[in-house]
């Protein structure tokens, strides 16, 4: 496998995130383990309330973690960091938000919005240098330098999302957490934004953590996908593997919900509904196991056996 040779940029181990204390303690995310390799697009897919955004925010240090570690470039980042380290991490991990109208300051010009990070981290030598950087990035995201002196409300949703991307990328990050960056956009604009993200990845070896609820969108953009439900990762595999051999019933249900843009097939399609009661975890406790190199699933011993069998049968069928 080629994946093994790649170097790990971000690593989550036994991560738990909880809100409240004592009686009111609510565990939003538990036992999350995964690595993100440099230069890849890793997608976290789940429904609302599954904890996918919470994980993204924890990586940025917005949500405190209650257990486990987040390691970035070999340094643990979910603990007290020195000022210098913190500056370094907050520059290298950037976020693109879902709602491009709520995430831009309505009273600031585009010029200020994009340069804010440069000001905070003193990343420019002179006013000329700053202007040159801002102009360059705004052109790269497909807007014009004259747009710099306008305000967010003067732009359409797709253009605002481009501004959000420019603001994140001017910091020259290593990891970009993109939280549903295209959910609020029209189908035709989605394509433009996705292509733009891909372009930047090709040019500067960026790593993306892509958060989404729709498997059809992540199919196109991701290298690997993790499916999350109720704060737990249920299945993790390379994109093609996950689409070809979805093992966990929840993954199958998610796949069946993706609309098929073909009337004949769409009318025949059966919608699978996932019922967590189908798992009997009273005796055998489940854990996150690797059933095939790179393909992980949350299962107990009998289920693991069953999944391995399915994979074997499938492998024989193809050969």
């Amino acid at each position: 496998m080629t994946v093994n040779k790649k170097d790990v940029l971000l690593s989550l181990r036994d991560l738990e995130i909880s809100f409240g204390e004592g009686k009111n303690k609510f565990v939003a995310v538990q036992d999350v383990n995964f690595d993100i390799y440099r230069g890849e697009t890793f997608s976290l897919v789940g429904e609302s309330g599954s904890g996918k955004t919470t994980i993204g925010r924890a990586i940025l240090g917005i949500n405190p973690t209650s257990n486990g570690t987040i390691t970035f470039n070999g340094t643990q980042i979910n603990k007290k960091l020195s000022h210098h380290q913190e500056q370094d991490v907050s520059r290298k991990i950037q976020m693109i938000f879902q709602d491009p109208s709520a995430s831009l300051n309505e009273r600031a010009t585009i010029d200020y919005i994009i340069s804010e990070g440069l000001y905070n981290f003193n990343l420019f030598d002179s006013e000329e240098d700053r202007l040159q950087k801002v102009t360059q990035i705004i052109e790269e995201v497909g807007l014009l330098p004259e747009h710099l002196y306008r305000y967010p409300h003067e732009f359409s949703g797709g253009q605002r999302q481009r501004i959000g991307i420019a603001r994140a990328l001017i910091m020259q990050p290593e990891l970009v957490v993109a939280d549903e960056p295209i959910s609020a956009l029209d189908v035709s604009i989605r394509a433009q934004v996705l292509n733009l993200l891909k372009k930047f990845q090709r040019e500067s070896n960026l790593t993306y953590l892509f958060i989404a609820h729709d498997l059809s969108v992540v199919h196109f953009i991701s290298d690997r996908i993790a499916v999350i439900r109720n704060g737990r990762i249920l299945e993790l595999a390379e994109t093609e593997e996950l689409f070809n051999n979805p093992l966990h019933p929840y993954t199958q249900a998610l796949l069946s919900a993706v609309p098929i843009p073909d009337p004949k097939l769409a009318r025949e399609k059966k919608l699978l509904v996932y019922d967590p009661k189908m798992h009997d975890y009273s005796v055998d406790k489940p854990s996150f196991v690797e059933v095939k190199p790179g393909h992980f699933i949350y299962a107990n011993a009998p289920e693991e056996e069953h999944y391995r069998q399915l994979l074997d049968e499938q492998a024989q069928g193809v050969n």
Partner: protein
Amino acid sequence: MTENILTVKDLSVGFQVRGKELKAIRNVSLELHDQEIFAIVGESGSGKSVLTKTFTGMLEQNGSITHGTIDYKGKRLSDLKKDKQWEGIRGKEIATIFQDPMTSLDPIKTIGSQIAEVIIKHQGKSKAEAKKLAIELMDRTGIPNAADRYDEYPFEYSGGMRQRIVIAIALACHPNILICDEPTTALDVTIQAQILELIKELQREYKFTTIFITHDLGVVASIADRIAVMYSGEIIEVGTCDEIFYNPRHPYTWSLLSSLPQLAQKGGDLYSIPGTPPSLYKDIEGDAFAPRNPFAMKVDFEAEPPMFQVSPTHFAKTWLLDPRAPRVEKPALIQNLHERFEQTLVKDNQLDQDVKVEENLEDEEHDRK
């Protein structure tokens, strides 16, 4: 031939914005057949919501019908002016479900009372009867333990559940036409699929006509009988669901289909439509899509194309259908749509139906050799 329940002729709608006129709808004609699901597809700003707002008299203050007529069951809706005149129609005959279920429910009233209120007002039932009917409706729209959840508030419901309640409220007065304005856009895909199923089921049971507005062609493939595609205030193509997906004729419909993420090729770029829609403040010369259309001809910039008839049910507004136009094939990406999806779908379900699929795969191997 099915009966028409609503007929729109040459409708134009304008808005007064800072002393300028914005033409949101330009000469739209359509016929709505009884008990069909009619989908209207278009990007934001194409006028799809504005069009349906004229059916219930809900245009914003600065908007008005500047031309054309809307007829519903012998009544001329386009002549109605005052809210009083609309009372018998809005909600009772033609109801609307909106995109965001949180903003269409009252946050400080219980779920049950919001449904019962509508039943009391429109059907003149007593309080007790209304409660019984409301619980029945909640049950029908798939709310578990409806009786217990009658007294809960909207914040205690999830997004999908709230949308079910909005549907229940809309159905409480047995409307003849249900307008669904992007009802699933704010929901998760799994919930979206369930709501689509629900609308289909309820339609069979209550026998209403549905207008389904969306920007995503993929969503309506499973439920629409007919589809209209809108671009900058015009219907540019209309046909049965199969005709729009398998035999689209307008280059804009081609672009919409091509940009579906389900069609993306791994490693390549997604298709995206170049440019932006035209400004609606200006008069549009020729074909509105021409500047973004790779197939545009000289005539597209000079004269507005008429509606050409492709089949008894299929119409498209493009000069490409003129007999004098050169023959242009639709883009390769959307040819053999059905065959392509059949293949990918078979691949996705390999594990479910292993025996059958194995045979198919062997056949394919064979073909390749």
